[in-house]
């Protein structure tokens, strides 16, 4: 370790949607690495420790080293030549970069979608249909005395969710912290989150909707088909006991994860959670919050919404935004073979998407922006190496409860930020399109 050490207080971890902004970082400025991240969980520690400066080319074109400028030119040419260029990813970059991506999509009449579509996209659909009884994590920390996690495993995906926001912290109206809260976990398997719960309810896979609907019926004092116990794997007595707790708590919260959105029922499951929370407001105060995954996936929803009016799956091919999940969402556009070029920003669909979608990515020109090599950068025709948000660059990130947080970077990177690369691509796309769309490209308008 060198003597050139810097400390950064109140830095932010952007690895998961908890976006913890209480990190105290020790930075070796000569080695350009973070040697200590006080307050970080295991995932956060790995995030800070592993994002160093690797000796890699600024860009690759067809696998060969290139400059950022050459790659910008190649990327712009690909996007302008395509009939249905798509932009996807955006959950691990700043709002400032996300904004540039929307602008490029608007210019080129393409399609823009974020990792939300394969995360809480179904919840986004449900919000529009059912509405959302919501709160910030700060409010939950200070008030919630009943905390229910449904279809999620925060102990492994969001390790500090329990300790910083919702289970153990002492709050204004829950002065004894953990002792003042009753915690319930509903899942198909006993995960490492189960020991945190006072009550673990093991549900049969694919029957969340039935259980949620039965709970709604109990809340309203209706009769429930006794066969539901067999179907869901949860006894009617357990359901009634849970409903009693939900109606008698002072402040309840339902956190729901991808165990609901990625399984049979999808947006109906999320809608059922939101409707249950709404129903409970006749008796007490109850909120429902999706537990969001990547560091700035919530920012992606916000930016795409304020720029286009819709949260994800937005198509500009008619020159104005249209929203239709299932049609303008990326898995569909790829699996159906419709997209003819793709720009992937801070995401790795070549590793995580269904096989038919990955197969199509191999057939079309792909542009990738990422801090590290991935399956997506490997199949990309143009791959940019970019700096890491929150570690090398500042900007804005939204925590999972829609609270915006400004990042405090630790050390500089030689690589450009996503925002810088996207601004350069936008400018070049605009120039090329101006030439393509007019017979008088040099005409000056006063």
């Amino acid at each position: 370790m060198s003597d050139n050490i810097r400390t950064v207080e109140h830095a932010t971890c952007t690895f998961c949607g908890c976006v913890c902004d209480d990190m105290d970082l020790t930075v070796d400025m000569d080695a350009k690495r973070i040697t200590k991240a006080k307050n970080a969980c295991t995932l956060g520690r790995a995030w800070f420790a592993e994002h160093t400066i690797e000796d890699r080319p600024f860009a690759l074109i067809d696998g060969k080293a290139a400059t950022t400028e050459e790659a910008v030119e190649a990327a712009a040419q690909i996007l302008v030549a395509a009939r249905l260029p798509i932009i996807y990813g955006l959950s691990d970059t700043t709002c400032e970069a996300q904004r540039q991506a929307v602008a490029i999509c608007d210019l080129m009449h393409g399609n823009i979608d974020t990792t939300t579509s394969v995360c809480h996209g179904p919840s986004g659909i449900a919000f529009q249909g059912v509405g959302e009884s919501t709160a910030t994590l700060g409010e939950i920390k200070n008030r919630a005395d009943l905390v229910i996690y449904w279809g999620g495993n925060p102990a492994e995906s969001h390790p500090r969710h329990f300790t910083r926001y919702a289970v153990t912290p002492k709050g204004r109206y829950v002065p004894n912290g953990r002792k003042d809260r009753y915690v319930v976990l509903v899942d198909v398997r006993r995960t490492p989150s189960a020991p945190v719960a006072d009550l673990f309810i093991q549900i049969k896979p694919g029957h969340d909707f039935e259980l949620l609907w039965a709970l709604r019926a109990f809340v309203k004092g209706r009769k429930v088909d006794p066969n539901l116990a067999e179907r869901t794997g949860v006894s009617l007595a357990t359901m009634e006991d849970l409903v009693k707790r939900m109606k008698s708590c002072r402040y309840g919260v339902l956190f729901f994860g991808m165990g609901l959105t990625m399984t049979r029922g999808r947006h109906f499951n999320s809608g059922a959670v939101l409707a249950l929370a709404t129903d409970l407001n006749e008796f007490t105060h109850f909120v429902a919050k999706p537990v969001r995954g990547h560091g700035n996936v919530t920012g992606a929803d916000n930016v795409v919404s304020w720029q286009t009016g819709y949260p994800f799956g937005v198509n500009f091919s008619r020159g104005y935004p249209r929203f239709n999940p299932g049609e303008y969402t990326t898995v569909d556009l790829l699996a159906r073979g419709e997209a003819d070029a793709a720009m992937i920003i801070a995401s790795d669909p070549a590793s995580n998407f269904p096989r038919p979608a990955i197969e199509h990515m191999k057939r079309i020109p792909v542009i990738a922006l990422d801090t590290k090599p991935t399956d997506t950068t490997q199949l990309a025709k143009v791959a940019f190496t970019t700096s890491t948000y929150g570690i090398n660059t500042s900007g804005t990130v939204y925590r999972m409860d829609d609270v915006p947080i400004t990042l405090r970077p630790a050390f500089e990177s030689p690589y450009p930020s996503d925002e810088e690369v996207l601004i350069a691509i936008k400018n070049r796309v605009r120039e090329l399109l101006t030439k393509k769309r007019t017979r008088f490209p040099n005409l000056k308008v006063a």
Partner: protein
Amino acid sequence: MAEMMILVPGRTNKQGTSLNAGKLKKEYRDVTSTVEMNTDDMARLGIKEGDAVRLATVIGETVVRCKGRKPTDLPAGMLFIPYGPPSSQLMDGDTAASGMPLSKNFEVSVELVEGPVP
């Protein structure tokens, strides 16, 4: 003989730490190539800890390493795998007009295969 089971891909701590190191690195590849199975099911199917098993759907197939979990943690007939390239091979691209592919709780066939995990 292949048997049908329910596959649950999900996140784990190890997957999270290894992806920070690099998704093309061995540790991440190993983590995402290990499926967990109830130990009673393993005994019944003659599968030992570390054996290679083939998971298959109509979309594709993958050969992964099998690891036992207590029946109290993982119910009979259910498999858990950390998300990654192997689980993607099994997922259908049809999203039922939702944008979301069925990514959890889908049926896969499971069978023991001879030899090591590729």
